[in-house]
């Protein structure tokens, strides 16, 4: 029996986060009322012309630098021609034979043997990355379709991998890594629900050892990261089943239905494509010099996996903590800032407080990290108080909750709520309690006669003697014990 392996290549479209569109200056965005983000250029009105958006070029070059691509010294614009209602000009401005980024690779991490163990890393080679314009959106109804051109002209990067992945898990890891990298670079928010990250997969199978690629099936509409994994796994299984049943695979495009977990061939009557690419005479080429690249290289952040390795090495924190911190650049930066302020030996505590308590509070309040009132300095101070034994764990949780609500420094909260731990010398506390009871016969009488609140009268002098640092709970307990004896 022949053993088969799958070969997967991904075409990933990433919308670039810019204020205006890629070839005109009307605003770009998601969630606006239909056809409110158009101008004469977007609608391809007669006589309109495109003008490049510098920020979109910066973004794709930055993406290329982050992924180790060669940045072409010269690239140009081509028209990809096909008729479709979401494409206002009936051609898409794209890059055909001179894309801006060539080669490069995406580092991926495969699932580890256990949740707390780092998985195997490998590099998936890229073919190219080019810049193009997004198309509008079709809304399908019972008898017709409605077209909204808000999305048309949004800058869109197409990241094309080599056919170098074998499993759905690898594809999933690849997409996750691209998403993390793009978010790190500030290039895109990569929200798949908003269509900011989209993925098509080319999948084929071949006997193990065979060099030639098998019949390729293009799988479309992998609209969420989990659909990418499920859809590809499903397609590989389908192809294996066809071959096992003695059938022959046909080159086709299939649409994956993530809800049903099924796919079907797109058998539209569409004519065979001939895109008739040619250089767009309305646009001039882009020349990228070393100075421009250097400027963008300076703006490049550390890559997520590099940062993860560094956090593990420099802060001695466990993999599980880094795997929560790393996908969120701001969160991992917050960790580093806090850990540096908290000092040696406290990094794991910092990691725990952030990944457990802070994320829980943010989740409950449905707030992003940017809305958190807890500064790195205050969180570091809290951890130092715990470490010094000044705050007991239960009290620390209370202080943290207040910090989250008010943004105050922990010392302020501790003082106000009197949450500081008692002086270590309980003998001293007991002595102060005895003195206070002895000095207030009236309150003693009242307490003995059943007026419980009279106990408060003893507390003032004790706190005064303790300079406010007595643990109120402990004071209360000690007083009650001594009063019972009195």
């Amino acid at each position, binding site marked *: 029996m022949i053993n088969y392996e799958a070969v997967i290549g991904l075409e990933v479209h990433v919308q670039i986060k810019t*204020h205006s569109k890629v070839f005109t200056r009307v605003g770009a965005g998601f969630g606006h009322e239909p056809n409110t983000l158009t101008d004469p250029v977007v609608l391809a009105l007669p006589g309109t012309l495109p003008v490049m958006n510098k*920020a979109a070029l910066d973004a794709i070059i930055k993406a290329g630098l982050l992924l180790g691509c060669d940045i072409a010294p010269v690239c140009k614009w081509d028209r990809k021609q096909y008729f479709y209602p979401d494409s206002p000009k009936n051609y898409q401005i794209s890059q055909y034979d001179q894309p801006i980024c060539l080669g490069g690779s995406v580092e991926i991490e495969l699932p580890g043997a256990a949740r707390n163990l780092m998985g195997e890393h490998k590099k998936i080679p890229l073919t190219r990355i080019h810049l193009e314009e997004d198309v509008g959106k079709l809304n399908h109804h019972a008898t017709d379709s409605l077209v909204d051109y808000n999305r048309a002209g949004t800058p869109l990067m197409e990241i094309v991998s080599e056919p170098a992945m074998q499993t759905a898990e690898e594809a999933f890891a690849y997409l996750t890594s691209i998403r993390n990298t793009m978010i790190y670079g500030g290039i895109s928010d990569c929200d798949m629900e908003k269509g900011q990250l989209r993925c098509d997969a080319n999948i084929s199978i071949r006997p193990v050892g065979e060099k030639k690629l098998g019949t390729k099936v293009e799988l479309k509409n992998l609209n969420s990261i989990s659909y990418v994994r499920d859809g590809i796994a499903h397609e590989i299984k389908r192809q294996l089943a066809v071959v096992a049943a003695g059938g022959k695979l046909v080159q086709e495009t299939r649409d994956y239905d993530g809800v049903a977990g099924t796919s079907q061939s797109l058998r539209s009557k569409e004519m065979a494509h001939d895109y008739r690419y040619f250089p767009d005479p309305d646009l001039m080429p882009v020349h990228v010099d070393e100075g421009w690249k250097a400027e963008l290289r300076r703006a490049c952040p550390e890559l997520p996996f590099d940062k993860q390795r560094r956090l593990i090495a420099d802060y001695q924190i466990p993999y599980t903590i880094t795997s929560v911190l790393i996908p969120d650049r701001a969160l991992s930066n917050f960790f580093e800032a806090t850990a540096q302020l908290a000092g040696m030996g406290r990094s794991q505590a910092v990691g725990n407080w952030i990944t457990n308590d802070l994320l829980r509070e943010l989740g409950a309040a449905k707030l992003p990290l940017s809305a958190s009132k807890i500064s790195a300095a205050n969180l570091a101070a809290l951890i130092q108080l715990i470490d010094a034994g000044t705050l007991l764990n239960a009290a620390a949780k209370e202080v943290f909750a207040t910090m989250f609500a008010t943004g105050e420094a922990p010392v302020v909260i501790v003082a106000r709520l009197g949450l500081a731990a008692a002086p270590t010398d309980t003998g001293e506390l007991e002595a102060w309690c005895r003195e206070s009871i002895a000095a207030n016969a009236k309150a003693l009488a009242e307490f003995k006669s059943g007026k419980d609140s009279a106990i408060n009268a003893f507390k003032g002098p004790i706190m005064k003697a303790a300079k406010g640092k007595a643990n109120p709970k402990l004071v209360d307990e000690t007083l009650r014990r001594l009063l019972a004896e009195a």
Partner: protein
Amino acid sequence: MSQPAELNIDRVAELSRLALTPEEKTRFAAQLGSILGHIEQLAKVDVSGIEPTAHAFPLNNVWAADVAQPGLAVSAALLNAPAQRDHMIVVPKVVD
């Protein structure tokens, strides 16, 4: 250089999205045939080592800063729309 084949009028009309009558196809094919016949002489020009001209006066890095500007009001955007509903363009149902 490969010798260009006959113009396949059906295929080209299809790519151009032009519904041509049989009479138009015959007429255009004949007219374009004589023009293509004239154009054949370009094959004689020695263009080895010659760079193509895409622009008479090439410039590079012509761009604008990423500053969003107001666009068209929906009413202006749909001013000339042959069919519209709910502020969108209506087209026959697209099967994709």
